[in-house]
């Protein structure tokens, strides 16, 4: 039985791919030599994934929710339903997952082995989750009511302590006309999301704004979680990923969706850096050293490598690792040379929370914030 040389080459190539971890993630540029890229798992397209705080396990979605140990590859199947958002508790003992149920969402809490501990129902589709403490979780949801004249879109924030019903805060409502609905279908719901400051005092969310005679766009709103006071930080396109907080809680990075991304001190109202990428997907490492924008990896503002622009990533909470979803595969970019997370000490964090609160209430101006910050918090 003869075999052609070409066939033999193909078999050897495919075998090589198999043993090398099927690393099909296209990479351009020069990553540090220490960096290792491996495929972690097959995942559902556009599905969420989340590192636990120790960076040892990943929650991911592969035909249902899975917990995967990164070192051993051991996997726990939690269920067959597909969540829309995932978040680990600060101590890593619990995982929160939101699942769509008709026009509502089921918010479930699991222990680290995937056993269900608690569940509640929330109106709308949950797009993001955040643990405010080990006993309180925030869920950001979007409801949509369709009428002949358009759709009423509402953004809602839920606060749940794991027992009873969640507290509801209505953030905004707007009506999107049918033409714009068709144009932005599948995008606007994904665009409406939030992130929370590591100081746990303020959140940044994308407020859908649909003026009668103009195209809809997003307003990035900084909202105090204690007073509910809000300030507009920027106006961006519906393609924007919104904003993410830096690890020290003193700046945000947001994408314009079309054009550039910016690093901004929203309390001092000053631009710190401009990143030449539209920011349709964003992730910032806890140290602030690495930024992943639209698949492009920046180290201290300089682009060092690029992955496909449609890939989406998340850095591990302790730094040094990047999980990257590309198509229906999840990859791990490990051993990234990184600094320790830049979280402030308890005293500084308290001082910053106070100053942020004063700006948010309009008690001091951005200029006074910068002066007072300089006086009271030494760099």
């Amino acid at each position, binding site marked *: 039985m003869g075999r052609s040389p070409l066939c033999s080459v193909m078999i050897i190539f495919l075998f090589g791919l198999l043993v090398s971890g099927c690393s099909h993630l296209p990479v351009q540029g020069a990553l540090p030599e220490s960096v290792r890229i491996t495929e972690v798992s097959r995942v559902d397209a556009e599905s969420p994934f989340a590192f636990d705080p120790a960076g040892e396990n990943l929650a991911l979605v592969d035909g249902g929710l899975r917990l995967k140990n990164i070192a051993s590859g051991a996997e726990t199947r939690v269920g067959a339903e597909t969540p829309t958002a995932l978040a680990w508790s600060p101590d890593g003992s619990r995982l929160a997952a939101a699942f769509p149920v008709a026009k509502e969402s089921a918010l479930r809490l699991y222990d680290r082995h995937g056993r269900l501990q608690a569940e509640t129902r929330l109106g709308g589709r949950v797009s993001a989750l955040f643990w405010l403490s080990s006993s309180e979780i925030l869920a950001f949801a979007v409801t949509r009511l369709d009428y002949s004249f358009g759709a009423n879109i509402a953004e809602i924030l839920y606060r749940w302590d794991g027992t009873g019903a969640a507290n509801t805060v209505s953030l905004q409502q707007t009506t999107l006309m049918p033409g714009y609905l068709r144009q932005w279908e599948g995008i606007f719901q994904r665009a409406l999301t939030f992130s929370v400051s590591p100081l746990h005092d303020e959140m940044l969310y994308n407020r859908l704004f649909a003026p009668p005679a103009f195209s809809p766009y997003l307003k990035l709103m900084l909202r105090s979680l204690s007073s509910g006071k809000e300030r507009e930080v920027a106006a961006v396109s519906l393609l924007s990923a919104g904003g993410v907080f830096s690890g020290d809680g003193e700046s945000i990075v947001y994408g314009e969706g079309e054009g550039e991304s910016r690093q901004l001190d929203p309390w001092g109202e000053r631009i710190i850096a401009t990143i030449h990428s539209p920011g349709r997907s964003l992730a910032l490492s806890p140290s602030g050293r690495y930024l992943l924008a639209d698949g492009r990896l920046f180290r201290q503002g300089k682009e060092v490598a690029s992955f496909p622009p449609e890939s989406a990533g998340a850095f591990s909470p302790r730094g040094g690792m990047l999980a990257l979803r590309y198509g229906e595969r999840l990859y791990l970019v490990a051993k990234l040379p990184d600094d320790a997370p830049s979280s402030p000490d308890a005293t500084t964090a308290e001082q910053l929370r*106070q100053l942020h*609160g*004063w700006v948010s*209430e*309009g*008690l*001091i101006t951005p200029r*006074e914030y910068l*002066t*007072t910050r300089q*006086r*009271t918090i030494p760099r």
Partner: protein
Amino acid sequence: MKVLSLLAIGLLVGALAAPVRADDCLDCHRRKTPAAVRQWEASAHARAGIGCGACHGADHGKIEKGEARVDQKVCGRCHGKALREHQASRHGMGLHSGWGCTRNLPNRDRQECRFCHEEGSEMPKSDVQCARFLKQSSEMGEIGCNSCHMVESSCASCHTSHNTDLKIVRDPNSCAKCHMGPDHPQWEMWQTSLHGTLNATAGRSVGPDCQTCHMVKGSHNVSFGITMSSGGEPYPPEKRTTRREEMLRVCCECHAPAFARRELARDDAVRDQSLVILKGAEHIITDLADHSLLDPMPDQRPPHPLRGPQLVLDNQLLYEDTSHIERLFFKMKKYDYARTVKGAYHQNPAYTHWYGNAELKMDLVDIRSEAGRLRERKGSGAGKGASAEGESTEEQLRVLKRQAERGALSPEEYERAKARVLKDAAGEGKQ
């Protein structure tokens, strides 16, 4: 043939356009609204041959739907001078001072729109609104507010609907429907004053009534000679002088000019002294609000219908959904201050003193006492970063912000004061 057709059409159109004569209505309305017919038959309108259609129009369907009501514009077609005088007076803004837009109120009556809007227009006739009206149910608003405040657009408010007998509107009782009660008891004040007593015993030629002084020679301008706003704030000096001369001419129909001038000057003094007491109480409450001491604070209770979550102590103040001290201030301002001042101008000693000024001073005692209680309650709360007065940096900043917002601090003063507080907070200002 063509000529005949045109003639027939002409006759038909002519018949349709013919004015509605009283006889057309009377057959039915003698049975359906007998009192209205009897009143009309005895009226000057009937004697002058002015029938139903002249005021009500010819569209019976519209009349039945309540869309052809006879308001001031209808009366003004013939009574132009009276309408102009009325519109120039405080009665001319009566409706809007009692109303606000009801579009967002539950169970609202859509018929109400016509009071404030021309048909087909979204623009209100006036932008004067009343927060207290907006807090009412439709039913309460109808009887408790509109029965009086409809005087703006409805001549029938005083004259009644079909009567034209001037005896009705020349009687002070027709004013009493509205000008009585705890907030402005002018009728009771007049009745129990020397003017009222003389009127009751010796007649109108000796004891003047409401109309004698406020509707001089039949004028519909009831604001003639009045030197202050309806809230008791004195008008600017120039306007005050003109108005005073007007009223003096009325007084001098009976009194010596020097006497009348002296009496009114004494009343002015009572007003000014009472206003100082009122402003003192207002200052106490504003200061409490600056220091977040009201219970509840404006942002912790249902928002004010016109101003939102703000402290409101001007004429739009409320008696519900406020703190206790603001409710005390409501009584002080709307009842006791008003009674003191109006009592003085109506020459009624008991209203000026016991129902007015004494209550006003006791209100101030109550307000000071309540303010002391609120401050004491807060006293122990001073914590980290507190000032010499026991306030934290944040509280001091909040006080400054509120003072700047109500104009008690200029922008420059505000900036300087903030800089001082922030320096102190950083430990630099006290070195």
